[in-house]
């Protein structure tokens, strides 16, 4: 066989080996293009990328044009955020790998306020507290063995919070209200000092449990104290919880008291004073008078245990080096 024929055979073999792979794929992509042809261009993108692209386009018009947008995506879905950034441009974006990355950037004054949550299947404009609530709901409560109080019609929680510190600190109130009565209990909760009120009904012999009492009742992330009143005596348990550190402290039912029990002070130590009454009150702090409005809630950093008196409720929080929050309650 001549060299010319050998060359030709080799060329044919090579060409066939290439065409065997290219031709079917070429036919497939041309056929795909034919099916896309009748659709408008944006609809073609939707066909290619599914509902994910449609969700991006849906809120695109609502986003501010001149403000940077935070794209928060779970670390496993960062690619989706990268593509969201691509399709949203020229809307400027900043990517955060997970909600914790966003909250840890809180001290950064350039951190965007507008949030878009992205994952591999969906993108949506949202708020930080909604993402936080989703995560908390999907997780587990810290307190497994509840210490329910004796039945009573009023609870004063000296601290009620739904707030985040730097990751993993996630402060909230885990609450359980059990109605041992044969009649439903109408419960009225007031969050002070904002003064917002919510009412809930606990059925006869029923129990209501909350993984984030403040946010679930009031839909806000804030701190203060809370007055819970019930039409029927209820057994209750309210825990101040740091979900990120699986740390929980049972809250007492507060009444006027100021003699704070001595205890070790660590870091971030704060004195809290509340005025649970409907009238003005005066707290005497190390000999200095501090007038308090009705339902006031104040806190101040301290370095040593203060002497407090007056018709108020005072307590101290301090954080151990391991992040656990210790409470020094009044006697």
């Amino acid at each position, binding site marked *: 066989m001549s*060299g*010319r024929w050998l060359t030709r055979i080799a060329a044919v073999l090579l060409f066939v080996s290439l065409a065997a*792979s*290219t031709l079917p794929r070429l036919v497939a992509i041309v056929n795909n*293009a*034919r099916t896309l042809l009748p659709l408008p261009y944006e609809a073609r993108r939707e066909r290619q990328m599914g509902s994910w692209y449609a969700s991006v386009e849906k809120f695109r018009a609502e986003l501010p044009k001149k403000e940077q947008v935070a794209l928060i995506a779970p670390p496993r879905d960062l690619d989706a955020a*990268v593509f969201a950034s691509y399709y949203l*441009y020229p809307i400027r974006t900043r990517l955060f790998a997970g909600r914790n990355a966003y909250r840890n950037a809180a001290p950064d004054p350039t951190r965007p306020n507008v949030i878009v949550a992205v994952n591999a299947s969906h993108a949506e404009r949202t708020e930080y507290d909604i993402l936080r609530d989703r995560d908390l709901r999907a997780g587990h409560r810290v307190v497994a063995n509840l210490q329910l109080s004796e039945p009573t019609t009023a609870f004063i929680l000296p601290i009620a919070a739904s707030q985040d510190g730097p990751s993993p600190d996630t402060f909230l109130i885990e609450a359980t209200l059990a109605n041992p009565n044969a009649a439903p209990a109408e419960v009225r909760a007031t969050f002070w000092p904002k003064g917002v009120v919510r009412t809930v009904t606990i059925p006869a012999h029923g129990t209501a449990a909350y993984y984030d009492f403040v946010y679930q009742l009031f839909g806000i992330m804030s701190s203060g104290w809370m007055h819970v009143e019930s039409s029927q005596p209820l057994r209750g348990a309210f825990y101040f919880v740091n979900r990120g550190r699986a740390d929980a402290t049972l809250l007492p039912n507060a009444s006027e008291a100021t003699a704070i029990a001595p205890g070790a002070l660590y870091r971030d130590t704060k004195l809290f004073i509340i005025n649970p009454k409907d009238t003005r009150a005066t707290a005497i702090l190390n000999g200095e008078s501090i007038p308090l409005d009705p339902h006031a809630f104040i806190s101040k950093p301290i370095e040593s245990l203060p002497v407090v008196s007056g018709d108020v409720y005072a307590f101290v929080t301090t954080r151990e080096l391991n992040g656990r929050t210790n409470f020094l309650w009044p006697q």
Partner: protein
Amino acid sequence: MIGFIVTLVLFPLIGLSLGRRSLGEAFLLGLGITGSVLFIAGVVHVPLVIAMGLIAVWGVGRGVWELKNAFPVAKPHSPLPTILMIIPLLALTFTAAITPLNDFDGRAFWALKAKGIAHERSIDGPFFHGGTHDPRNQYPILIPLDGAVILSLAHNLDDRNLRWLYLGILAALALLVRERIGRLVSPAAGAWCAAILIWIPQFAVEPEGGALSAYNDIAITAFAAGAFFELLDTEKKEFRFGLWLAFLVLTKSEGLPLALVFLAIGAFVFRKRILTPAIITFVATAALLVWRSRIPAGDEEDLFRLLPTIPEKLHRLGIAAAAFPSHMLLMPRWGIFWIAVIVAAVLAARIERRAWIAIAVIASILATYTAVYVTTAWIPSELIAVTADRLLMHVIAPSLFLMALAARTRKTLSS
């Protein structure tokens, strides 16, 4: 439609402004000149709009003048390979016109940069300073600058305007291969090599790195092809060789080591005249470094900083050395192409001195990339899996040239 017209008319005319040449080469030179001039203009703070206007006026004027003097009409050769080359290109053109961009790097890096530059008319504006999420902020931007020209002229940031650019680069590469191998070996060999190139799955239909994606690997392959053919050209145009090397440096991170390989081999070919390409490459590299120093880094790897870690990573040598041979045998991406290239290299090296230049280019480039696999901070096997086939694309021109030489050698022997 504006994107299509700009791609098809503006870049070839700018390429023709340097003198009469084939359409493929004119297109690639036009892309390179436009991107490089805009980049240098951006580095020295000349407003991009002004630079764009000047290039367009000068390039189109000169290009039209060249065309008026003599239109470079190629003689039709070898109808069968020509038809075989055209069929996939038509299919890809139809597809590019209809299907939206859908690849990873294209959207995550390259087309995003084109949008950013077109929107801000700057290469160091807020986009490159954290204004938006740009994961590989310091990647070279020659092709995104070309894309920005298209988007700016179209007054539209939609990536559908860029679809023609990437397909155009493949078509231009094929035409360059056809014309140059046609001249260096035989017109029929050139036509067949171009047809083979277009039918390689990695170029034609691979979603990540193929002609329907917005990766820059076909562009760097085309510029490397331009540089390689200058090494073999009897006219030995060192300025043009230097231009190709500058384009390589400004197109992708791999471009700088590629340019250095070409400079080293070019030193044997051009002798003292290698100084001109070296200066041009140096200017491009300096401009790139100055630009990079002004903008924050993304999450790209700094390989130069990783170089001292090579001794502790020598255990990776086995997996790095096996990377290219194993990917060369991936039939769905390459068919028996690389087997044919190896056989061709053995045959051609026995008779043709020029074959050794091609072998030296291929071996040096693949050795450089293998060293990168050893050095990388990535898990080598993962990096190899996503990059080896695209890096193999970069040596396609010398590989096709070896096949053309071998075919001619067989014919010579048989006659």
